[in-house]
């Protein structure tokens, strides 16, 4: 071994003596070593490539063999193996705040077959298809005459269907008792209730499990036998919910919107009295969940009230104003410079109309001036704004107790810059669910306490930490009242109920950046009665367009506000609120003695 390096050295020395160029010899030497090395590497690689080839071949054969084994085995019979295990029955009912049933259980039967016991499989299949037209005859005959020993035919059947199958008289067709979940009110409060389906199932019983909404959220509670079948009482009011759904559905159609949501919430307890999201569905026959490659927010299963996060536009202005009032930066009469457009870098903030060079703070809200609000937000600053919105719960998913609420996580700006502060103050750049907005308005309405929205019935006020001084909250409430009595929400006036509120019309963002010109989210967040608010009502319409005029009107004042007003007109009496009328000036009472 030691000779190998020495030999070229010897050759180089001798070449040098002869006056030849030693570099050529060195190169030749390197070339030869290289060649040897490559030959060795190639021999090794040949072996290893063969190993790889055999490995891949074996692996593919394994996959193929496994495929063959699976394909020649019988389809599994999922139900039979569960028959022995005890299935906990008796799911607790769900009731509304007055104790009226929202979800209960119902005795029904499943239909299954044991083909070996059948007398005439063909006739049985034909008979079944006549009773259940959705069954496939060819498939049934194949199943009945094949090797299968057990198969489910229907998960739940009605008593009439059961009698009809019984009359077929085939001993191979059997019924299994089980309980099913029934929602007697149909699609009412569908998104809150969610729905249920069968979990483990056997021929003698089946387990009912919640798949969405409160059914899923409180699944453990509802199934727990230790609760002694005590019903779960929700904060919803069935009557109010029905009225709200009817009005909202009509409003959605009238305003040509593709979706709508409304939330009615008690401002002191945080109880949600009614929550509607349209389009909706029937939880008794819950549609399939949307699958990938599909925008989930157009599915009827999508809960716009808690899952949908939108830029809610000018409804956010009151938060900036209330905070500035609270911090003492402004009073309702402070004059704000509203010369437009307000330039910030490459960004321009404009108003819907030009409202003149300066306005009072009250007018900024009443006329809904973006520029004025942005100027006030600049005084507040990013840090304080963020902390305030956080204290209103705007930066996290709402604690609303249905599973979908966790999906409604607000979209925050990546970098909370001064520009973000300005745009967020008028509701752009921060996307929240309407439920967030309702909770925020509740804090203003109840005198400055945060309340967390809940679907469960509460007893008495549930005031959280104070987020605003009572005085700032009262001033903000007065402004909200003025928006209705003389501002952008004049259609919101409901005689006797002193509605206050703020409109918001936000351009919808395009999925790939930028905003649509002609698609808006119109929102009206209202409180009533404004002098001592009891309830907050948020109505949001998705892509409304009011077409009675020369050109389509899309602002919230023309779309969401009238719908909200009609809803208040309908539900306020149901909530036990008495209208209060101030005596008209001209019609003063004349004393009889005069």
């Amino acid at each position: 071994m030691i000779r190998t390096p020495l030999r070229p050295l010897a050759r180089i020395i001798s070449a040098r003596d002869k006056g030849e160029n030693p570099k050529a010899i060195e190169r030749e030497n390197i070339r030869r070593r290289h060649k040897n090395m490559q030959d060795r590497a190639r021999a090794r690689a040949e072996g290893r490539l063969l190993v790889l080839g055999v490995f891949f071949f074996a692996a593919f054969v394994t996959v193929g063999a496994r495929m063959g084994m699976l394909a020649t085995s019988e389809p599994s019979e999922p139900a039979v193996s569960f028959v022995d295990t005890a299935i906990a029955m008796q799911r607790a009912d769900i009731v509304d705040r007055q104790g009226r049933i929202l979800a209960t259980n119902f005795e029904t039967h499943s239909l299954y077959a044991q083909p070996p016991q059948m007398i005439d499989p063909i006739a049985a299949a034909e008979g079944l298809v006549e009773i259940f037209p959705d069954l496939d005859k060819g498939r049934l005959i194949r199943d009945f005459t094949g090797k299968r020993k057990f198969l489910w035919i229907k998960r739940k059947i009605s008593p009439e269907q059961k009698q009809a199958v019984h009359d077929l008289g085939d001993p191979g067709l059997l019924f299994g008792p089980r309980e099913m979940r029934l929602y007697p009110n149909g699609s009412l409060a569908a998104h809150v209730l969610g729905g249920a389906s069968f979990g483990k199932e056997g021929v003698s019983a089946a387990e009912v499990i919640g798949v969405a909404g409160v059914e899923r959220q409180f699944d453990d509670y509802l199934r727990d036998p230790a609760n002694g079948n005590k019903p779960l009482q929700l904060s919803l009011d069935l009557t109010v919910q029905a009225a709200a759904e009817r009005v909202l559905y009509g409003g959605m159609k009238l305003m040509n919107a593709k979706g709508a949501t409304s939330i009615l919430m008690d401002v002191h307890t945080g109880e949600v009295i009614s929550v509607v999201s349209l389009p909706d569905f029937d939880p008794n026959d819950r549609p399939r969940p949307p699958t990938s490659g599909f925008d989930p927010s157009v599915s009827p299963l999508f809960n716009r009230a808690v899952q949908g996060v939108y830029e809610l536009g000018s409804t956010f202005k009151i938060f900036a104003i209330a905070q500035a009032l609270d911090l003492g930066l402004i009073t309702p009469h402070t004059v704000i410079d509203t010369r437009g457009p307000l330039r910030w870098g490459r960004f321009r903030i404009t108003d819907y109309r030009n409202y003149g060079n300066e306005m009072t703070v009250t007018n900024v809200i009443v006329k809904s001036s973006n520029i004025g609000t942005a100027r006030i937000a600049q005084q507040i600053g990013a840090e304080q704004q963020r902390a305030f919105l956080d204290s209103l719960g705007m930066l996290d998913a709402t604690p609303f107790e249905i599973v979908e609420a966790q999906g409604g996580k607000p979209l925050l700006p990546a970098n909370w810059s001064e520009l973000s502060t300005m745009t967020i103050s008028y509701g752009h750049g921060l996307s929240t669910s309407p439920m967030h907005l309702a909770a925020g308005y509740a804090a203003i309405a109840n005198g400055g306490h945060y309340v967390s929205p809940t679907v469960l019935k509460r007893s008495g006020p549930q005031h959280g930490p104070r987020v605003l001084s009572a005085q700032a909250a009262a001033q903000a409430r007065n402004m909200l009242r003025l928006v209705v009595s003389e501002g952008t929400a004049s259609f919101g006036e409901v005689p006797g109920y002193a509605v206050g509120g703020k409109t918001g019309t936000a351009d919808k963002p395009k999925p790939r950046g930028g905003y649509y010109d002609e698609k808006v989210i119109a929102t009206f967040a209202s409180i009533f009665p404004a002098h001592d608010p009891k309830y907050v009502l948020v109505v949001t319409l998705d892509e409304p367009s009011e077409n009675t005029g020369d050109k389509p009107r899309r602002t919230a004042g023309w779309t969401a506000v009238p719908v909200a007003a009609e809803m208040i007109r309908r539900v306020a009496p149901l909530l036990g609120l008495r209208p209060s009328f101030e005596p008209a000036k001209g019609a003063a009472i004349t004393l009889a003695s005069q």
Partner: protein
Amino acid sequence: MTEMVFGAVPERGGEPILPKWWRTVDKTSMSCVLLLFVIGLLLGLAASVPLAERNGFPPFHYVTRQVIFGSAALVAMLLTSMMSPTMVRRLAVLGFLVSFVALALLPFFGTDFGKGAMRWYSLGFASVQPSEFLKPGFVVAAAWMLAASQQINGPPGTIWSFALCVAIVLMLAVQPDFGQACLVLFGWGMMYFVAGAPMLLLMGMAGMAVLAGILAYSNSEHFARRIDGFLSPELDPTTQLGYATNAIREGGLFGVGVGEGQVKWSLPDAHTDFIVAVAAEEYGLVLVLILIALYTVVVVRSFLRLMRERDPFIRLAGTGLAAVFGVQAMINMAVAVRLVPAKGMTLPFVSYGGSSLIAGGIAVGMLLAFTRTRPQGEIADLLRGRGR
């Protein structure tokens, strides 16, 4: 005299490109790939209809797109396979650099299409998944480095390529896309194995992997549950895997018939990750076995042809490409029969997907370019008397 009258006879250097290509290219593998593509279209007719219906397109929308992307992929494959290995290397390394940068910038400019993983660039009419293009580029670049490290006084290519591999795996894991990360790691491992990884190191790594697996199994409840769920014979019939398994069973030997399958309506990924289940249900075991045979032929033939290759770079690059291609197909099919835990991976050339098709076409084109018959200096060996 003739030349003076008629001018010199024009003479070309070397053989014309097309005849040379046809003479030297691996025609068997190429036919297999074409067959795979045809089968993919056939399955697309069945599997992508439910998706098109859900998304409100005409029923064969995705088949049309598949034909368009597939034609582009086949053209890319043919063009690539006509190039010389040097040319392939240059273009692939350039492509690698571009897609590496694209992958690195994904977190800033990518979209997730609401699926929770940042993997795509949206171009409006179509979307691009840079990691699909990165794979073949990385294989070629790493093979180049590994081959360079075998030169005397060569650069430390092994370390470089490993560092690159780790960087890519980390970037993919961040997306998260563990399937692609595994593929890249596996491709590099195969190349390193063929490049002459020390036996001791290989055994050590195998030991470490087993040890890590045991540790994870005994310490991490989540991991243990997944492995237990995978090992247990019972299967929840309402999961994707349950549907797929039942579909294979329903299909039996010859399938339930064209268009009669049910599984495609219940599986959201029927047109990509679980296309084998659709194939098994509608066309039966026969078509699945044909599919497996086609992949086996392409991969094993490529390895056998590469055994003769003397250029280390070509050998390594070919190994890596064939291994990645084969493993991707194998994992996809093995998931459907529950041989390996669930992992989102497309079936090359068969699954729907523009990026995956075109990148697959380029990768197979490179593989074909590398496995072309080339003079390997056998005659020189004979002349020197050291032929084998």
